[in-house]
């Protein structure tokens, strides 16, 4: 298989791995990490297509996603921290306050 196909398959696998991890794992922190994995899979595929099609917009998009991911982590982790400080557990099942 050539490089393009291999890289796209890799990005797809990264995404799928991340998705599975988000759904299966019962640990909030780990869920976040797998979420990052999904994002990285998307970024990889973006890079591949940019190189393939020569569209500068793709590069911009990559940088955009990087920044958004970083911002998201910067906000999500403190939220998680505060949540866990109150709830004393990383198990998502313990947090059902938004029920109903």
């Amino acid at each position: 298989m050539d490089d393009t196909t291999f890289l796209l398959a890799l990005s797809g696998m990264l995404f799928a791995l991340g998705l599975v991890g988000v759904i299966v794992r019962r640990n909030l922190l780990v869920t976040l990490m797998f979420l990052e994995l999904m994002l990285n899979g998307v970024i990889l595929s973006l890079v591949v297509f940019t190189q393939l099609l020569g569209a500068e917009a793709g590069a911009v998009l990559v940088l955009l996603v990087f920044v958004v991911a970083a911002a998201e982590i910067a906000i999500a982790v403190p939220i998680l921290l505060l949540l866990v400080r109150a709830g004393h557990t990383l198990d998502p099942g313990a947090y059902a306050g938004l029920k109903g």
Partner: protein
Amino acid sequence: MNGLLTLLVLLPLAGFLVNGLFGRRLGPAFVNIVGVGLPLAAFAVAVWAWRILEAGGGEPLIETVFTWALVGEHVFEVSFYLDRLSAVMALIVTGVGALIHIYSIGYMKGDESYARYFAYLNLFLFFMLLLVLGRSLLVLFVGWEGVGLASYLLIGFWFQDVDKARAGRKAFITNRVGDAGFLLGMFLIFTTVGTLEMDQINQAFAGGLIPVGIATAAGILLFIGATGKSAQIPLHVWLPDAMAGPTPVSALIHAATMVTAGIYLVARMSGVYLEAPAASTLIAVIGLLTAFLAATIALVQTDIKKVLAYSTISQLGFMFLALGVGAYAVAVFHLFTHAFFKAALFLGAGSVIHALNGEQDIRRMGGLAHRIPWTSGTFLVATAAIAGLPPLAGFFSKDEILWFALASGQGGSFWFWLLGSVTAFLTALYMFRLYWLVFLGRSRMAPEVAAHVHESPWPMTSVLVVLALFSVVAGWFALPQYLAPLLPAPDLRFAWPILHWGLIVFAVLVAVAGLVAAGVLYGDGGRRAEAIERRFARLYRVLAGKYFVDEIYERLLQRPWRWISDRVFLRLGDRILLDGSLHGLAALARRGAGVLVRIETGSLHWYAWMILLGLVAVLIWVWRYV
């Protein structure tokens, strides 16, 4: 002389405003000057206007004051109209009215709402003058409802007594039912004739342009209004209860003036009734029936004012009988004489009540003739007048009615005359019964009452004398001839003078028979009468119960309406059906929401799965359809 009629109408209104706003503060003397002076001034103006009328040969005086409303081509003006008929009415209203105001100075002395009383009385006078001087049915109606208001306020004058307040309300509501009929009649006339000015309406009907059916319908509808105001069957029930008001009020409003408004209305609209024989017959029948039945009730009443109240209803019935057979001028004649002797009777009753410190039950009176001579004497004169003894006033007017009841070519019949004569007999009977039980025989008064019996003060007795005097001479004014150009006498079925004289003699005999019968039955303090009452106990109870009309109305009208309003409208309609369906919808929304909310589990995991599923669904959809 422009503005004279307007002045006439406004004088009592000024009295109402001044006494109403300032009377309490300025004291009884001031109230007297304003409250009595202005009606007297009004009487003077009325006389003046009448003289101008006569100087012009009876040509009606018309004053247009302003345009009330202009709607498209329809004009509604406020104008006044003085012809011989309204002149007679205006003179009665202001004349007798002024006298009763004077009487009230004595009767209401010391009452804590002295100023309010005179204010209301003046207000009544204002509206009554509007009624009789109005040129259009609209102005008449304003006066019509206005006197109803004044009556309501005056009947319930001592409003702290719940029963008195209730009586006022009953009068107003009963009148209102009549007014609804009146309004419909007015609308009908307006729609078919195009105007509400009464003189023009009469002309239109006389010209034969309006179909008989319309005339009949309008006549009946207006008459419904008249039955309300003039206390005829079936809307007569308010008048006896109206006796709750101060006695001068009963004299003025419920004897001499307001209740005569219905007579005036029919007489004024004679143009319509001449074209509507069916309506006229209805009027005659109801009038006669009312006269008879009221007389039977009067026979067994024990409250002095109630006897007079039923007597008034009965006499009004006579007037309607005359109207119903086309003898309009004669009806007005009886209205005229009746005003004097009925007012005298009521005021005399007031004098008696005053003398006995509030006693109104005739079973606790008796032997008063010597102790209150002025009251007794005037009362006797008035009683004789109403009984129809010649040459007093009632004889002339009542006799004319009976004659036309028999001989009128417009509906006269033997049966009318017969029942009318029986009623005349009863009239004499119950009136002399009243006189005997109150003034003659042994005293049946409570001892404390008997000790303080005293003649009334001069404002009261002088008025009694004046009225008694008029009760004697009023019949000598040839009123029917005076009004003939306006209200011609009906053609006669048979014009044998000897029949007429025979009838007159018969009528006198009837009156005397009543007098004698009264003496026999009640002369010994009523023992013989009581024996008869025991023999016919059931009949007695029906009469004393006034034929239970009030009770029937309560059962058939008031209770069902209240029941419907409460059970059907409020509980079933508003609460169960309307609000119920609303609340049902709300409950439905809440239940639906309750089901849908189960998606919100609060579990992150669940949300993630849902997102995934949704994403997959969207992707498939895009794949398939886009």
